[in-house]
C-alpha cells in the first residue's frame, strides 16, 4: 500500500473541458488514479461523470486538456484505440453478445487466429485465454462453454470484466456496477475489486451509493456542475461530508411556487411494492418521488399507468379502482410522460401534430373521423402556448431539439386535458430555458389562479393596479376561477434541486422501497441524497 501511494499515477487527466453547444459539461476537471488504487468518482446526475469517462474511453474527444497513460500522452480517437491502450469500461448495460459462449465473448474482437489472411480461429487458444482470465478473477467455476444469455446478471458482469482482463487492461472503469446485482453478488464483486486492486490495476468506481463508495474505495473525487468539487481519502471522511460536497449549491430562482391549496384526492396508491408506504395525490399539488437511477421509481409509475402489470397493491384513480390499461387510464384522466423520450415518449417519425394529439383524436372530427386541419389547429394552440420552436405542426418531431421535443410530449397531456399528470424525469437532457418553462407550466397547472388577475384580464380595460368592481357576475367568475380545472402532478426525478423547487411533498424511493411523503419544508438536498443513496440506512 505504501508502495502504491508513492507510485506515479497510472493515468492522469488534467484540465479536461467539454462543451455540448452552449452547455459546458466539463470545465477543467482533473483526475489521476495510481496503480493498485480504487478511486470513487461521485457526483449528482449531470455532474459530468459520464462525460469524463466517455472522454477517458475514447467515445468523446475533449475540447481542451491533457491526458497521460503511464506518463505518456494519451489521446484515443475511438473506443477501440482506448481498449488497445488498456482502458476498459464496464457499463451499467452489459455489452455482451448474448448468443455466444463465455469464451467467445471474452476474446471477442481479439480472437487468436492462424493461417494468416484466412484467420481461422484457434479454438484451443481461445479456451486457454478465457480460462486464464476467469482464473485471474478467481472464478474458474464459470464454464467457458456456457451461453452468456443463460448466466445470471452477476456472472455476465464477471464475463465482461474477464474480457477486460483478457485484453490486457491497465485501467478499469466500473460504472454503477451494482445496479443489477443482489446482495451476495455485490459482496463478491467487492472481493473481486479488492483482488484486482492487489494485482495492481487502477480502478475507477462510479456510484450513487455512498455506502458502496465507503466500502470499496481508497479515495474519492467529487464532481459538481462539471468541476472538481473535492477529493480525499474515503476511510477518514464521513458520508455526510461527501454528500455535502456533492450538493453544495443553493436552489436558484428557476422555480415558481404559486398559491397552492390541496383539494380532493385524485390518485391513491397502496402497497405496490413490499415495504413501501402508501400515498395519495390531491388536486392542486405536486408530489415528488425522489430516487436514484434503478431505485424502482420508473417501475412504480409504469405500474400505476398500466404499462406494466401490477403484481400487488392497489391503485385508485378517483372513483375507479383496480388494474387498468393505459387506454383506461387516459379515459380516467391520467396521462403519463415517459422518461425514454426517443424510445417511447414520442414517435420520432411522426409529425408534431400526430404526436401531440395521439392520445385524444376524438373531438377532432365528426364521429370516428379525424380532420388533419383540426389536428393542426389543436397542435398550433399548444405550440403557441408552450412556445415550441418549430416551423409547422406537420414537421416530424425528430427535427426538433430535445427541449422542444419534450414540450411536445408534455403538450400531449395538456391536449388530452388530464387531471393527473404523471411525469417521469420531465427535464432530463433538455436545455435550461425549456426546463424553466416546464417548471413554470407545472406550477400554473396546480396553483390557485390569482383571482384579481383573472378578473382583470377578463374585464377588458380594467386597470392593472386596481381591483375590478364588485358585481354579482364578477364574484361568480372569481369563484369559478378559483376551482377551475386545477390539476395534480406526480413528478419523478433524480435531480433533487428541481424536486425541492417545485414540489409540495416529496417521498424518497430507494432500492425498490418508497418512503412516506413528507412536506417539502422537511427536506433538503442533503437529506434527500442521504435517504436515496441508502446512507441513512447503513
Amino acid at each position, binding site marked *: 500500500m505504501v508502495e502504491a501511494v508513492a507510485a506515479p499515477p497510472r493515468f492522469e487527466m488534467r484540465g479536461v473541458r467539454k462543451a455540448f453547444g452552449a452547455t459546458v459539461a466539463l470545465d477543467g476537471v482533473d483526475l489521476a488514479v495510481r496503480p493498485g488504487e480504487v478511486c470513487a468518482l461521485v457526483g449528482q446526475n449531470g455532474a459530468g461523470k459520464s462525460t469524463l469517462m466517455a472522454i477517458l474511453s475514447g467515445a468523446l474527444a475533449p475540447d481542451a486538456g491533457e491526458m497521460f497513460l503511464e506518463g505518456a500522452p494519451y489521446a484515443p480517437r475511438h473506443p477501440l484505440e482506448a481498449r488497445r491502450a488498456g482502458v476498459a469500461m464496464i457499463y451499467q448495460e452489459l455489452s455482451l453478445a448474448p448468443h455466444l459462449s463465455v469464451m467467445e465473448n471474452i476474446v471477442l474482437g481479439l480472437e487468436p487466429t492462424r493461417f494468416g489472411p484466412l484467420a481461422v480461429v484457434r479454438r484451443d487458444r481461445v479456451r486457454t485465454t478465457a480460462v486464464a482470465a476467469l482464473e485471474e478473477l478467481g472464478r474458474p467455476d464459470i464454464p467457458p462453454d456456457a451461453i452468456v444469455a443463460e448466466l445470471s446478471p452477476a456472472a455476465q458482469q464477471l464475463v465482461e470484466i474477464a474480457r477486460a482482463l483478457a485484453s490486457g487492461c491497465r485501467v478499469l472503469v466500473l460504472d454503477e456496477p451494482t445496479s443489477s446485482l443482489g446482495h451476495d453478488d455485490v459482496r463478491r464483486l467487492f472481493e473481486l475489486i479488492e483482488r484486482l486492486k492487489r494485482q495492481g490495476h487502477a480502478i475507477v468506481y462510479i456510484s450513487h451509493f455512498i455506502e458502496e463508495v465507503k466500502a470499496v474505495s481508497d479515495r474519492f473525487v467529487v464532481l459538481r456542475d462539471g468541476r472538481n468539487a473535492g477529493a480525499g481519502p474515503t476511510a477518514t471522511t464521513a458520508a455526510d461530508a461527501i454528500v455535502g460536497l456533492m450538493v453544495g449549491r443553493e436552489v436558484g430562482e428557476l422555480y415558481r411556487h404559486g398559491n397552492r391549496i390541496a383539494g380532493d384526492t385524485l390518485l391513491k396508491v397502496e402497497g405496490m411494492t413490499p415495504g413501501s408506504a402508501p400515498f395519495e395525490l390531491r388536486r392542486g399539488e405536486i408530489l415528488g418521488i425522489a430516487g436514484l437511477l434503478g431505485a424502482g421509481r420508473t417501475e412504480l409509475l409504469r405500474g400505476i399507468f398500466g*404499462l406494466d402489470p401490477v403484481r400487488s397493491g392497489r391503485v385508485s384513480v378517483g372513483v375507479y379502482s383496480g388494474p387498468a*390499461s393505459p387506454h383506461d387510464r387516459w379515459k380516467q384522466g391520467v396521462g403519463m410522460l415517459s422518461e*425514454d423520450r426517443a424510445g417511447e415518449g414520442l*414517435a420520432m417519425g411522426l409529425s408534431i401534430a400526430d404526436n401531440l394529439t395521439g392520445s385524444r383524436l376524438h373531438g377532432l372530427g365528426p364521429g370516428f373521423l379525424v380532420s388533419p386541419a383540426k389536428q393542426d389547429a389543436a397542435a398550433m394552440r399548444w405550440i403557441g402556448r408552450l412556445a415550441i420552436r418549430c416551423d409547422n405542426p406537420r414537421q416530424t418531431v425528430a427535427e426538433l431539439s430535445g427541449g422542444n421535443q419534450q414540450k411536445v410530449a408534455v403538450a400531449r397531456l395538456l391536449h388530452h386535458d388530464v387531471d393527473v399528470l404523471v411525469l417521469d424525469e420531465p427535464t432530463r437532457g433538455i436545455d435550461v430555458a425549456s426546463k424553466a418553462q416546464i417548471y413554470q407550466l407545472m406550477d400554473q397547472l396546480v396553483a390557485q389562479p390569482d383571482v384579481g388577475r383573472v378578473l382583470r384580464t377578463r374585464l377588458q380595460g380594467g386597470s392593472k393596479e386596481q381591483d375590478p368592481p364588485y358585481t354579482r357576475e364578477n364574484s361568480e367568475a372569481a369563484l369559478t376561477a378559483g376551482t377551475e380545472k386545477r390539476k395534480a402532478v406526480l413528478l419523478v426525478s433524480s435531480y433533487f434541486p428541481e424536486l425541492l423547487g417545485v414540489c409540495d411533498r416529496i417521498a424518497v424511493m430507494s432500492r425498490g422501497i418508497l418512503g412516506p411523503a413528507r412536506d417539502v419544508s422537511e427536506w433538503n438536498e442533503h437529506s434527500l441524497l442521504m435517504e436515496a443513496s441508502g446512507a441513512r440506512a447503513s
Partner: protein
Amino acid sequence: MERALAVDGSVGRARVVSRRRFLDESGVLIGLAVVALIFGALIGPQFVRAANLELMARQTAIVCVAALGMTMVIVSGGIDLSVGSIVSLSTVVVALLLRSGAGPAAAALGGVAAGAVCGTINGVLITQLRVVPFIVTLGTMLLVRGAAKGLADERRIEAPITWLNDLLRTAQDGRGLLPAGIWLTLVLAVLVALTLRYTRFGRHLFAIGSNERTARLCGVRINWCKWAVYTISAALAGLAGVMEYSKLSVGDPTVAVGLELDVIAAVIIGGGSLLGGRGSVVGTMAGAAIMAVIQIGCSQLGLQNWVQQIVTGTIIVAAVALDRWRQR
C-alpha cells in the same frame, strides 16, 4: 412574440412540406410514367390505347385489392404472407357455395367471410401468442393452403356460370365502361385511403407502425387495432379471391401461389416501409400498375417470362434504394 413567430413561420414552410409529401408519392408516379413511356416507345401507340389499358387494369385488379389490405398491415409495422393462400381458399369457397345452389352474392360474401376468418386467426395468434407477424403468417400461409386443398379434395371445383364470372369482363354493349370489378377496386382504394388518412383507426395504425411503445403510452388499443387490420387485410384478400374466381370460373386450391410477394412488392415500390409507419394507397396502386405495365409490355414485346422477372426484380430493388437515397 413566440406565438407570432410560430404562426408566421408555418405559412411559408407548410408549402415546403406539402411539396415534400407530393414528392413522396410523385416518385412512384414518375416511375410509372417512365416505365409506361419506355414500353410505349418500344411497342407503339397501341400500347396506350384504351383496350390495352383496360387489360392492364384487369390484370392488376386482383393484386390491387389484396395490396390495399397489405398497405394497412405494412403501415402498422406488420406483414401478411398468407394472402396468396387466402385467395385460393376464397376461390374454392365461392365455387363450393355456387355448386351447392347458393346465389352468386351469397357465394361472394362467403369468399370474403372465409378470408376474414383467416385474418381473425392471424390477428389472434399475433396478439395473443406474441409471435412476430412474419412467422405467424408464414405458418397460416401453409395452413390455409392446406385447408383449401382439403376442402376442394385437391381438385378444381367446377361451378355453374353466374354474373360473378363477368366481374372483370367489359360490358357487352360496348359502351366503354370499365368492368364492375375495376370500379369496385377503385371505390375500395378510395375508402382505404380515406380510412388511413381521416379515421382514428388509420391514425392509430401509423402510430403503431412508427413506434409501438409510444402508441401504447398514448392509450392506443394495440391488440384491437392489430386484430382489426389483419382481419380487414384478409377479408380484402378474400375479395381478391372472388375476383380470381371470376377470372378462372373454377375454384382452384393451387392458384395464387406466391401472390403475396407481388402484393408486398406493390406496397414497397409504392413507398411503404417494412419497418412500419409509412405507406400510401396512391403509392401502392402505382406500384401495382408499374408491375402490370412491365408484365404486359414484356409479353407484347414478345419477351419471354424470364426477362420480365429480371426487370420486375430490378425495379423492386431500385425503387427502394432510390427511396432510401431520397430520405437522406
